[in-house]
């Protein structure tokens, strides 16, 4: 027999197959999910970049609008120009200073939030590209620089078509208010920053970082956004870079749309693509779980196969045993039949000579031949009684043998029970008197008709009364009762005899059973009487029961069906 499960070729093949299926299955969902996650991260970051770019554009657009409104207000004469520019500072807190420059490039008016002394210098802007381009008629955006107060500043310029000649209105914008736009962005461990056209970092959540003016033009993503003016979604391999903290980041970038600025959003890849990693872990878990399940199934399958094999083996053994038992049973039945036949033949062969001997002895004891001397009579009497007992034993053995060989012929007749019971009472009343026993009869009148074999029923009742007489000490009472009990007639024999020990009562109707206390009292019993009686009553469709208490007596009851009772039902 095989035991345990080993990783054999039989289990290895499905195992490998399951592993491949799991692997392929995982890849089938993992690849599109990972692609989708990257797209989602890219979209989210681009959305942030777009929002920041829009805010920056709006900030500068508002400033340009304010400048143009002021420019419109100062085209006529110079009287109100100082007040108009002062109001511009009042209402646009992002402007730190504003200068009016005439067509020759000379600063003719200035309003600022700090010093007056410097403003009267009359700076020459004639060579400034910003001035030259703006005087031509288009608002311009200058480079971002760090002010003396260490804040990011930028210069905006708008043309002024004044009645006293073309001019340029320039404003120095303090970009401090733009820092919250990049600082307050909610992106886990992420960063939003702005580079100018040169790749210099001009906006960052931390002022100290802005002051460093680091140039990131070496980054591919910066060159593409600032140089080519394209939106970079971060999905290309070279869009990623290692940031100043040495962390590889997932980044996107887009042009702001004003001043050649570019806004960038970066996030450590471990954080940005954390979901992707989690999905990969899920895939690994599914793989491990799948392998585990397959392993368990294969293991269970192996065990089941082993159990089935063992069951098959046990089945074969049981079949063999069954055959052996059947064979043995047949042999036993044959032996039993031989035994019964032997007993029957032996008993039959013994009965004839024993009967002859019995008659001869009877003739001697009754002095039919000649009178015997007193000593001889005693011997003959003893021989006669012994022979008589042997004839009884032989008779019982023959009856048992006939019963088992189904040769016990019953002739049922529907008749009243009274004659059978009266005969039994009469016979045992005489015997009881000899043994100084009181034999009583309580027979109900009338008793219903019963279908019975007269000889066999007499035999059964005789056996019970005989036991009662034999095992009831002198002075005792034996009562025969008969009455109707619903569909049965109950015939009971009650004695005040030695009773049957409780421990042996279960064997009362067995062949050759004799209770221990009975053997001590009378050694002439064969132990076949009650067996034969029960068999006879059973053939009548009835039953035998008894109640007994050692030392107090017994009641044996025969129940016979009333004739025609079953048919009525």
């Amino acid at each position, binding site marked *: 027999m095989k035991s345990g499960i080993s990783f054999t070729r039989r289990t290895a093949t499905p195992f490998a197959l399951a592993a491949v299926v799991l692997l392929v299955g995982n890849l089938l969902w993992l690849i599109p999910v990972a692609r989708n996650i990257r797209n989602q991260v890219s979209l989210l970051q681009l959305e942030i970049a777009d929002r920041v770019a829009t805010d920056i554009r709006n900030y500068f657009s508002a400033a340009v609008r304010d400048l143009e409104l002021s420019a419109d207000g100062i085209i006529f004469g110079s009287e109100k120009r100082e007040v108009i520019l002062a109001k511009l500072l009042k209402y646009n807190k992002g402007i730190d200073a504003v200068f009016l420059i005439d067509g020759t490039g000379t600063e003719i008016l200035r309003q600022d939030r700090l010093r007056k002394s410097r403003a009267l210098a009359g700076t020459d802007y004639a060579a400034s590209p910003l001035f030259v381009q703006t005087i031509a008629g288009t608002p311009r955006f200058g480079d971002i620089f760090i002010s003396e107060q260490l804040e990011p500043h930028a210069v905006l310029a708008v043309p002024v078509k004044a009645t006293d000649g073309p001019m340029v209105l320039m404003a120095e914008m303090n970009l401090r208010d733009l820092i919250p736009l990049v600082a307050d962005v909610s992106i886990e461990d992420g960063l939003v920053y702005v580079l100018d056209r040169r790749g210099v970092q001009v906006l960052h959540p931390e002022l100290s970082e802005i002051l460093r003016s680091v140039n990131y033009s070496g980054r591919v993503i910066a060159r593409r956004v600032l140089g080519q003016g394209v939106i970079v979604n971060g999905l290309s391999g070279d869009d990623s870079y290692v940031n100043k903290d040495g962390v590889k980041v997932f980044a996107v970038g887009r042009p702001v749309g004003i001043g050649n600025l570019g806004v960038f959003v970066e996030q450590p890849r471990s954080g940005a693509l*954390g979901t992707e990693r989690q999905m990969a872990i899920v895939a690994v878990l599914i793989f491990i779980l799948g392998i585990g399940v397959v392993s368990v199934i294969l293991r269970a399958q192996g065990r089941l196969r082993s159990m089935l094999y063992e069951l098959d083996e046990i089945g074969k053994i049981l079949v063999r045993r069954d055959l052996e038992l059947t064979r043995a049973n047949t042999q036993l039945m044959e032996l039993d039949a031989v035994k019964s036949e032997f007993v029957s033949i032996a008993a039959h062969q013994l009965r004839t000579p024993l009967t002859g001997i019995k008659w001869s002895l009877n003739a001697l004891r009754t002095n039919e031949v000649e009178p015997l001397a007193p000593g001889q009579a005693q011997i003959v009497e003893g021989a006669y009684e012994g022979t008589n007992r042997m004839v009884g034993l032989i008779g019982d053995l023959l009856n048992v043998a006939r019963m088992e060989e189904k040769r016990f012929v019953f002739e049922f007749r529907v008749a009243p029970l009274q004659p059978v019971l009266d005969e039994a009472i009469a016979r045992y009343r005489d015997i009881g008197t000899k043994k100084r026993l009181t034999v009583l009869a309580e027979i109900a009148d009338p008793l219903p008709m019963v279908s019975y074999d007269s000889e066999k029923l007499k035999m059964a009742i005789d056996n019970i009364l005989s036991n009662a007489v034999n095992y009831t000490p002198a002075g005792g009472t034996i009562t025969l009762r008969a009455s109707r009990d619903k569909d049965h007639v109950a015939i009971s024999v009650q004695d005040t005899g030695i009773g049957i020990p409780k421990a042996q009562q279960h064997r009362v109707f067995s062949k050759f059973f004799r209770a221990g206390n009975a053997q001590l009292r009378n050694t002439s019993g064969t132990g076949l009487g009650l067996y034969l009686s029960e068999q006879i009553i059973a053939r009548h469709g009835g039953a035998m029961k008894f109640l007994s208490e050692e030392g107090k007596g017994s009641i044996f009851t025969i129940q016979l069906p009333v004739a025609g009772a079953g048919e009525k039902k």
Partner: protein
Amino acid sequence: MLRRILIIGAVVMFIAAAAYLFYGGSPKSEKAGKRLYNIGIIDPDPPLKPAADGLRDRLKELGYREGVDVSYVVIPAGKSVAETETQITAALSSPLDLIFSSGIINARAAKNVTASSAPDLPVIFAVVSNPVENKLVASLASSGNNITGVSPNNDLIVGKRIELFRNLFPGLRRVIFLWNDPITTGVGEVRSVASALGLALVERRVANAKEIDEFLASFTPAKGDGFVRATDAVNAQRAAQFLQWALDHRVPLSGTNVGDTEKGAFMSYGANYYNLGRQAAVLAHKILREGKKPSDLPIEPPAALELTLNKKTAALLGVDISSEQASVVDRIIED
């Protein structure tokens, strides 16, 4: 045996991976975490008190509940740097996470004490002009020590203040300017601007408050005089007396911030000290909750400068304010 080890290993791996999956990706908490912070506030002169109020209010907005997240320890200010240093030294006997100071005297005292006994204890100042030349910090970009803060830039804007004073009071012919600290007050700028605007200048260096009292008692103003209050510690001690003197002598006075205007100054131009305190609170937040060092945080200029005018004082002084003049004023105090 080998099979059992493999199974146990797989189960451990499974559990570890699942745990990482569910807990490993959780957002990181702020670096420094949350706990009760003890902030020592050096009790400032009355004109500077709004800065401390601004600090408390902004920190509250940032989620610092008093008694739960933050506890304020008021450190009494002495009459001199030495006395204040003694008070700060005493305060350091209990654990402090940060010191907030207003004005140059208190800031200098905080620097001196922490430099010797608690060099890692952050100090945030407000209302200290020109902290570099005042030798509080190495540069505006990085203090190079345990100090950072917000400057009102009074030394830089004093010229603009005089210009605006002249715009609102066109009859201004002479500027009266008492000063003690040339760095904080920007007296050089005062001279340049007065000269550029064609204004006479009466300037006097005062060593202490007593000399101010003596000047005010002896000086007789003339028509066209205007008083510009200087922004140093000595002059701050007599802020109320200056106002009273100016009203008594019908001399327009330019203060440094809206607090002066509210108390009766003709006008003021400068940073709002309450707002400077709010700016300082953000710096404190970066240090306490984000783990930044003071030297990482550049000294900040004021987020805004405001021109204020007291119309009642103007009327009392007989100064007419045209609508054009009023149009450039950020805040007009009506009473």
